[in-house]
């Protein structure tokens, strides 16, 4: 498995990949050309040498006549010498009559099937373990009285053909090797040139200051220009994200600074007094401010955690009914003291959804807290089935429709009154995004301008 994976194409460098895709077909092409050259040179050699078989058998056939009431032949030695060639081939000849009877010759040779429209046919045969090229000439006597058919069969060994074929093939081989060599050089060079902009891009990226998020500016071919553009878009996004983060940190420090400054002032004022009653009053105020600040810090922490893109929530099946009941039970006494009527409206059975337990609890707590903080006197946590939905309904002043999207941004408060930190809905929104839950805000009583109320619903996708 491991060596296989090592050789998978996707692991190869672009340069190697190009080499593989260019050189493999080139090698295949060269192989095909070599095969073709080999066959062609064999054929050319055969054609050239078959002429000799042709000439020799014709010159033998000319000497065939009818004499002493049989086929007769005065074998011309030159015909055989013609066949011997420079390669000093072994030479065989035979004369056969119309019935296929051997008349004369130095070896009995097989016949060949007649080829259409040709007196002469050629073939490769093996005779007594010797590979031979055989030529068979079909002819008839030219005379007044007899016109018997006869066959002149001549054969030679293949050394001369082999030598010529090898010579021709060698010439083609040299050509093909030269061409293939040039092609390889061209392929190597062009791949280098083609990949050169990529190298430039890589260098440009590597040489950048790691802190800078400025867009890349260098001339590149079209395909890489797209990559550069995508890269620049990514950089732009990162710039925005960084700006957001900077703003968030600024807001957060500002938010923390104000209560801390208040605390410091309050403590200073109290210290100038010597009346314990004043101290007590100051301590009570300071306690309230510290609690609020602690809550703010907690919310900032969870928001940071939620916004960390690398921490994907581990989802499990969560019973929404049980969750709603638990949250309400925990928050009940606190709200009751403030005079807020907190209740649950849930079916008897469990409503299951896939989510991260503690994050969902955090979101619900935030929603409940938010509602009570912004002036609601009655808050209802509602759980419905199909699709699983968790809603917090209040009878507070609500949020005007134009403000609703802004409300999801951190530190944005719908109204300056109230004790909220401006992070509650931002946290809920982050959790909803991480869970792929649809978050919707709408008025409960749109026809009631004073207190339209607000219903914030988390709707799970039904297939979850």
């Amino acid at each position, binding site marked *: 498995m491991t060596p296989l994976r090592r050789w998978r194409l996707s692991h190869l460098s672009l340069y190697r990949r190009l080499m593989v895709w260019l050189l493999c077909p080139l090698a295949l092409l060269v192989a095909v050309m070599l095969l073709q050259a080999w066959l062609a040179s064999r054929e050319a050699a055969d054609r050239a040498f078959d002429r000799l078989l042709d000439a020799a058998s014709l010159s033998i056939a000319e000497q065939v006549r009818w004499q002493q009431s049989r086929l007769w032949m005065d074998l011309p030695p030159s015909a055989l010498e013609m066949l*011997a060639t420079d390669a000093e081939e072994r030479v*065989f000849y035979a004369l056969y009559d119309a019935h296929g009877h051997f*008349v004369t010759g130095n070896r009995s040779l097989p016949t060949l099937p007649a080829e259409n429209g040709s007196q002469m046919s050629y073939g490769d045969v093996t005779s007594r373990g010797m590979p031979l090229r055989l030529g068979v000439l079909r002819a008839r006597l030219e005379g007044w009285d007899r016109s018997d058919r006869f066959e002149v069969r001549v054969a030679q060994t293949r050394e001369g053909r082999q030598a010529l074929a090898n010579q021709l093939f060698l010439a083609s081989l040299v050509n093909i090797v030269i061409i293939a060599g040039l092609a390889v050089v061209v392929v190597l060079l062009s791949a280098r040139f083609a990949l050169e902009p990529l190298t430039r891009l890589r260098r440009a990226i590597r040489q950048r200051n790691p802190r800078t998020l400025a867009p890349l500016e260098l001339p590149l071919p079209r395909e890489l220009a797209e990559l550069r553009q995508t890269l620049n878009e990514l950089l732009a996004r990162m710039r925005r994200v960084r700006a957001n983060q900077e703003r968030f940190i600024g807001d957060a420090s500002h938010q923390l600074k104000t209560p801390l400054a208040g605390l410091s002032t309050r403590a200073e004022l109290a210290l100038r007094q010597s009346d314990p009653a004043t101290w007590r009053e100051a301590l009570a105020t300071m306690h309230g401010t510290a609690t609020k600040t602690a809550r703010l810090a907690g919310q900032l922490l969870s928001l940071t955690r939620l916004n960390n893109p690398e921490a994907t929530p581990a989802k499990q099946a969560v019973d929404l009914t049980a969750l709603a009941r638990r949250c309400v039970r925990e928050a009940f006494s606190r709200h009751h003291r403030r005079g807020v009527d907190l209740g649950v409206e849930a079916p008897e059975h469990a409503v299951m959804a896939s989510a991260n337990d503690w994050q969902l609890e955090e979101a619900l707590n935030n929603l409940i807290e938010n509602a009570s903080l912004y002036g609601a006197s009655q808050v209802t946590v509602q759980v419905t089935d199909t699709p699983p939905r968790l809603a917090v309904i209040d009878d507070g002043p609500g949020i005007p429709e134009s403000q609703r999207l802004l409300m999801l941004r951190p530190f944005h408060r719908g109204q300056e009154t109230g004790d909220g930190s401006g992070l509650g809905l931002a946290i809920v929104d982050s959790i909803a995004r991480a869970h792929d839950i649809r978050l919707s805000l709408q008025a409960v009583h749109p026809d009631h301008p004073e207190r339209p109320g607000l219903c914030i619903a988390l709707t799970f996708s039904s297939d979850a």
Partner: protein
Amino acid sequence: MYRPDLFIRRLTTAPHHIRHLAGVLLALTLLVAASAQARTLHFTADAESSQPLTIYGVVDPPQVYPLLADFHRRNPDIAITYHNLETLALHARVLQERDAPRADVIMSPAMPWQYQLANEGLSTPVDSPAAEAWPSWARWRQELFGFTFEPIVMVYRRDLATRMPPPESHAELLSLLRQRSAELSHRVVTYDPRFSGAGYTYAIEDARISARYWDLVEALGQAHSELETTTAAMLEGLSEGRYWIGYNLIGSYVQDYVAEHPELAMVVPKDYALVLQRLVMMSRNAPHPVAAQRFIDYLLSAPAQRLLATQTTLGAVHPAIDGLGTAADLRKRLGEAIRPVQIGPGLLATLDTLKRQTLLEQWQQAFKNHSTHADGPLADPSPLPRAPQK
């Protein structure tokens, strides 16, 4: 003395030849019996790691002995067995043993037969520098090597010079036969191509070289020339004074004989001289290829060739060897007139049965003075009308 050319024969089976045939067979049997004790030569190996080498050959023991002895002296680890055979018997035996040859090396002066064996693929290439350097006219592939150089010659009695100028060339012989045909009647002797394979081979080569050969045959016929089947018989007749001129005799035998018979003189024809070569080859699937290759390498080496030139009458081919009895010497004296029988597929035509019959018929007709057919049975029977003479 054993004469291999005696046995080069392929007999036509025409009935009127049977009587003649019987006589020849009788002579043959007697000669074989006489030479039986000299049929094989054996040299035992001296070294411990000996390897055998079997040679089939058609070279007289007295001629081949110095060669084998010298080879044995240089290669004492090789045990040589030399079988001297008659050409057709050698041919038949090699064909018979084609799948499991017993001989490592085969040597024979019957060039067409030897070539046929090689063409059949019964020989194997010898890969050695000596074989590669061997002159191309004296070899076929790397398989068949002509290692001797034996011209075909004419012989005349020295006392002929008192009556007429002795012939120095084919043309002179022809004019002599035409001018003095009555005087030379029954006094000229040559091979009978019908009964002698050697004679047939020379006839076919003569006819290939010149069309005037047929005039010569006709003139020979008109002079009632005698026909023999062996060089030995011709030399004997010449020595006894029965014949005055002998045509187409094997030079290597003549040279020996003339040395002992001063009344005879040998002439290498000046216009053209056929040259016979003994061909040596290594058997395919030779049982002892290493020894065989060493022997052939030796035959083609300068020492062996010098030995052939000096101690035998077979003649040397090696281009580096000069002096009497070498190809270089003959070429220097006769130049272009030297016509070694070509080692090539043309030799196969010689063995073609129909070709043989055609040629012999033509020869017979020319010899018997059917003069209209002097150009052969294919000649146009009605020649073109001549232009009217003024």
